[in-house]
Structures are given as C-alpha cells and as structure tokens.
C-alpha cells in the first residue's frame, strides 16, 4: 500500500541530490510535463480505488502524455500558438476531477466501514 509513496519520496530525494539544473528556458515544458504525469498518476490511483487499474495504460500514459505535452507546448511556441496555457488548463481540470473521484471513493468506503462497524442501525435508517 505504501510502496508508491515511498517511491515518490525516493524520487524527490534523488531529484534533490542531482547536482545539474536544467536551464531556466526549459521551465515551461517541464512544468507541463510534470502536470501531465501528475494527472496520469492520479488517474492510476483512481483506477486502483475504482478497481479498474491497468498498469500498461498507466505507464504508457505517464511517459507518452508527459513527453507529448511538453512537445506540443514546444510546437505551439514554434507556430506562435500559446498551447502552454491550454495544456495547463486541461491537465488542471483533469487533476481536480481525478482528485474529486478519489476523495469520493475514499469517503464512501470509510463511511460504510465505519457505520457497519459502530452504528449498524444508523446505516439501516439511511
């Protein structure tokens, strides 16, 4: 259960210990890629919560979404269309949607467990 979070902490630590820094001009692409991968991982968690998890979809979505989104922002820069904000908007919306679904699932699971254990009557009344 906690293995993915350990992986997250490990990744952050490794990133902090790396000495090289990307040039500041990479920041927009990297930020979009980060948002895309965040969306993918939240989608993965959602899959686990809803029992619809598929590892292949998660991994492909993670890497292809991440690199494609950064590439699309780059292409937008080339052709003069600022896709950066579009990408941020889309991924932002998806991230919050995923978060909402995960929250709802967790709450309903917790509530049902809790009520079954301690207040079986209340649940029946509802």
């Amino acid at each position, binding site marked *: 259960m906690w293995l993915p979070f350990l*992986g997250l902490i490990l990744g952050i*630590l490794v990133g*902090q210990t790396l000495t090289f820094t990307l*040039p*500041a001009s990479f920041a927009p692409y990297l930020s979009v890629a980060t948002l895309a991968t965040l969306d993918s*991982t939240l989608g993965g968690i959602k899959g686990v919560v809803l029992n619809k998890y598929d590892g292949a979809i*998660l991994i492909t979505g993670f890497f292809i979404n991440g690199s494609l989104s950064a590439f699309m922002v780059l292409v937008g820069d080339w052709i003069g269309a600022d896709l950066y904000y579009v990408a941020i908007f889309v991924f932002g919306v998806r991230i919050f949607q995923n978060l909402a679904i995960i929250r709802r699932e967790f709450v309903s699971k917790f509530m049902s467990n809790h009520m079954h254990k301690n207040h079986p009557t209340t649940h029946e009344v509802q």
Partner: protein
Amino acid sequence: MFKTKWQLTLTIAFTCLGLLLSMQFRTHKAMSDDLNSQSNETLAAIAKNLNTKYYGLIQEVWDLRTQLKILEQSADESKTIFEAMTMEQQKLAVAVSSIPVEGPGLIITVPENDQNYFGYQDIIDIVNELWNAGAEAISVNGERVSSITAFTPADELSTIMLNGRDLSYPYIIEAIGQPAALEKGISIPSGIIDNLRAVYKIPLEIKQVDKLSLHSAFVPTYKYARPVTKPVAE
C-alpha cells in the same frame, strides 16, 4: 498477484513523478532567480538596491582608506616610540651590566707577589678611582662589576672574593672608557696607584688598549624593590 502488479507499476510512475517534481521545483527556482524572467518593477527595485549598495560600498572604501591612513600614522609613531624605547633599553642594559660591551679602555694588571700585601680594599679603591675617572664598564678577572657586585675578604686576608667567587693572582682589572682620561684619572700623584707603587711596592702594570670585550653580569630578578610611580608626598 494482481495487487503486487499494480504496486509495481504505480511505484515506478510515482518515482518518476517525484523525480520530475523535484527537478521542476529546482528549474522553477532557477527561473525565478533568472533576471530575464523578472518584471520591470522588480528589476527597477533590484537596480535601485544595487545602486544604493554601490554608493554605500564607495563610501566604505573611503572610510577604510581614511582609517588605513590613520593607522599607518599611528604605526609610524609607535615605530618611533619603539626605536626610542629600544635605545633606552640598551642604555639601561649597559648601565646595569646585563649585556656584554666592548670598546677602548685600560687594563690594570697586578702580578703575583709574595712580599707585599694587596687586599680587597685595594681593588675596591682602584675600581672606585676608575669610576671616578669616567669608566663606563669594569670587570675584574673577567667578572663584570655591576650594581650588586661585592668585594669581600676571604678567610685568609690575602685572598679576595668577588660575588662569592675566589679571585687569585694575577688580578686583571679591565675598564672601558676614554683610555688616556682613565689613565690620567687613576695615576694622579699620591692617588691610589701612586701609593700602591711607591709605598707598598706593588709592581702594577697599566696598559691602554683599543678594544676590550667585557662579559655581561648576573642580574637578579627584583622581587621587593618596586619603582615609585607617584611622587612621594612630603
């Protein structure tokens, strides 16, 4: 089986996400530190700040230069004081016989003789006469005469002790000073040398030399005698 599978892929994804997040964090920090991405207002504020700092630093340079000059002056002063003190110290060291000295002077030799009495009082007289004649440093048989030197008779009156050390013939008294003046000073008629030669028949030899070297004397550490700093009230 299913559980471990989702854990594995999710862990890989999360590790990569962590890596990306921290890299993005650092890149963003680098970007916000980069002057190109700052707003005009911030740049203006930074420029103003730097200007203020620049003038402050110029002011500081001037202050430090002034301070340096003052310090150099006081260093020069203390150097002069130090030189004066060193000279004074040398003078005092010569006066209390704590350092070896050399210079022109006089050698008085009292050769061995059995017939005539030559005692500690005679040595004291000769030394006193030499001081009188302007001697600046005196030593007897290689022992420097200082402010705490004592000549005392030994058990037999014929032997002489100087600072607790037995002296024996021939007694050699060396004195640094102007040689001619010293010789004239001690050879006055019916003076000590004259008396010793004429009355007591002591065959003294007096020789002027261009260069004499005298050892330093033992100088005790003073425990009780303290200099008076304030003038004593009458």
